[in-house]
């Protein structure tokens, strides 16, 4: 009680304590704002990848794919823990237009749009056919022509400076010629001797916006059978490149993946006599995180880097608090002597300074966290205002696929930051407090007599 009383009085009477509070508040503010935005961006990016892949994926690195077995797909679909299954064919190719002298390297994915929308976020990524995935490949302006869905950035949809895409009311009638290189199951060029390249014309039916630049900038979606022909995966037996799976909502991700893995191992055992068993053997069962690891890791690396930087910031705060307390103990050495001379114990004297530090930490955190939350709530209006007034944008929306700046405040994170800030203050005050307690009574009282 006496330590608290003195701590509060010291706190109120010393201007330097407000300096320490400001330092802690500033640090807390920055950490809360930046890490909240960063966490938001990372989890947003993860969610986009999750939607693009589905919960679980069976995939191979080989461009020739693996045998497509309707029995295996039926087995998967009959599992009570599985909600949807979508096989897909992947290939690479070039697009161009009639008479044009340019071409662009693209990737294409052959899917059944309805199944793929059930297993992944494909349906939601569409613009014109968002709620009608069964019509995804039907160009509204030419319903009887073959259609394709093009990644939004590849489709050349323009964007405002705020980041919103400006779609025309109808898809623009574009005719694209897609060429691909069919491969045999052994990886050789198929249909050797005839025409080495498969070409087909498609009309742009819709665009797809996954929010992942690498996909939106280079992917073309086609009907499964069309893609299969282009990639040469139709002969001598039908092949696919991946199977996307969505689990029932109640099923845990790891638990579901384990079950699929078990089923796959059993299936693999039963297919040992298949002439292309090696293709089946190359198939991996992954959850979406494992599948997109390389992309997500890059972002997470930045996040870790930031957290590390803020750890440094925390150390600086500790140092500031340390300096302020070091000075304070110097100033207050007479008081320490007085308190000792009337019988206050060393522990209680150390407590005075530790309570003082806790007060600074508490006030600083409270101010910083409150300021940070307030700032986050208004971060988007503030950014809009800055943009309108000064043409300043945190992220150039014509380059980055970010809509609003994420500002979801997480109470647990806030609590952790608060605890860390108070702990940092206590750490900074610890040495001066111990030093204060260890002072010799007469020494300090004598010094002030001179």
């Amino acid at each position, binding site marked *: *009680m*006496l330590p608290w*009383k*003195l701590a509060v*009085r*010291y706190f*109120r*009477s010393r201007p330097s304590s407000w300096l320490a509070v400001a330092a802690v508040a500033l640090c807390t503010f920055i950490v809360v704002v930046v890490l909240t935005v960063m966490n938001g961006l990372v989890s947003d990016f993860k969610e986009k990848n999750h939607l693009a892949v589905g919960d679980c994926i069976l995939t191979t690195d080989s461009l020739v794919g693996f045998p497509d077995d309707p029995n295996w797909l039926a087995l998967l679909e009959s599992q009570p823990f599985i909600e949807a299954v979508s096989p897909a064919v992947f290939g690479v190719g070039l697009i161009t237009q009639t008479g044009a002298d340019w071409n662009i390297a693209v990737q294409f994915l052959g899917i059944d749009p309805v199944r793929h929308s059930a297993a992944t976020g494909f349906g939601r990524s569409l613009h014109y056919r968002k709620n009608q995935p069964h019509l995804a490949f039907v160009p509204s302006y030419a319903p009887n022509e073959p259609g394709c869905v093009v990644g939004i950035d590849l489709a050349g949809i323009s964007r405002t400076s705020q980041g919103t895409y400006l779609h025309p009311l109808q898809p623009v009638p574009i005719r694209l010629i897609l060429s691909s290189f069919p491969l045999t199951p052994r990886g050789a060029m198929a249909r050797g001797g005839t025409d080495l390249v498969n070409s087909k014309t498609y009309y742009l039916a819709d665009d797809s916006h996954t929010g992942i630049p690498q996909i939106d900038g280079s992917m073309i979606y086609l009907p499964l059978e069309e893609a299969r022909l282009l990639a040469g995966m139709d002969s001598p037996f039908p092949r696919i490149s991946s199977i996307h799976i969505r689990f029932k909502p109640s099923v845990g991700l790891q638990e579901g993946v384990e079950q699929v893995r078990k089923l796959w191992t059993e299936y693999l055992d039963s297919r040992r006599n298949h002439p292309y068993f090696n293709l089946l053997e190359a198939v991996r069962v992954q959850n979406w995180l494992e599948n997109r690891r390389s992309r997500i890791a890059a972002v997470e690396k930045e996040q870790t880097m930031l957290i590390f930087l803020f750890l440094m910031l925390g150390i600086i705060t500790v140092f500031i608090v340390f300096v302020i307390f070091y000075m304070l103990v110097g100033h207050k050495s*007479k*008081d320490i*002597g*007085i*308190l*000792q*001379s*009337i*019988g*206050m*114990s*060393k522990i*209680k004297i150390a407590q005075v300074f530790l309570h003082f530090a806790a007060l600074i930490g508490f006030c600083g955190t409270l101010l910083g966290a409150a300021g940070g939350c307030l700032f986050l709530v208004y971060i988007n209006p503030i950014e809009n205002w800055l943009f309108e007034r000064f043409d300043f944008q945190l992220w150039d929306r014509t380059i980055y696929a970010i809509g609003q700046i994420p500002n979801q405040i997480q109470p647990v994170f806030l609590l952790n930051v608060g605890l860390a800030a108070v702990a940092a203050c206590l750490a900074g005050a610890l040495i001066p407090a111990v030093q204060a307690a260890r002072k010799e*009574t*007469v020494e300090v*009282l*004598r010094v*002030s*007599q001179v």
Partner: protein
Amino acid sequence: MKTIIEAKNIHKSYPMGKQTLHVLKGISLKVQTGSFTAIVGASGSGKSTLLHILGALDKPDNGSVEFEGKNISNFSAAQLNRYRNQSVGFVFQFYHLLNELNVLENTLLPAMITNGPTGYLKKKKELQEAAAALLERFGLGGRLRHRPYELSGGERQRVAIARALMNKPALLLADEPTGNLDSKTGSGILDVLKELNRGGQTIIMVTHDLRIAQMAGEIVHLEDGRIVETSKKS
């Protein structure tokens, strides 16, 4: 008469560069309960050092201090704190009040330390009344909420005496309590001490002023770290 405190052959020296400064060279002193003892001597003769040792603010290199028959060198840290808190009251030349606390709180400090948080809250009213009564007695009844820096030197010294007396210590130690005051204010403080002594309070006071020492019942002359003369008034 009973002996309240006894110093036996106290030695104290301080390192001074390569040499050591031998400040106290075998001091033996007996003080009776209820007496008023003045320690006089030139500046640097070791008066303050001796008083600090008696008040357990410092430790002797050699020799012992016995308070009510107990050797305080054998005290644990907790016992020493209790000794400083309850058995002796210390008055310094420079008052040594806490600027962050008001007059009443400064006076209450020793009681807050004795009782701990719960004990203090329980007895708060009673203790505050006792402190206020002490301050009233020293003519500070109207200044309870003032901060020390708002008081004159004499007033501050009276607050310091009130604080020293708060826990009703058996022994009051005063190190040049008038040293920093003009003679008129100083004699006011001495009157307070005299009156306390008449009421039975044992006092040991350090001064370099022989005239001030005259008012004490017993005068101990210190010279070069030794007691050279002890005179007693009848």
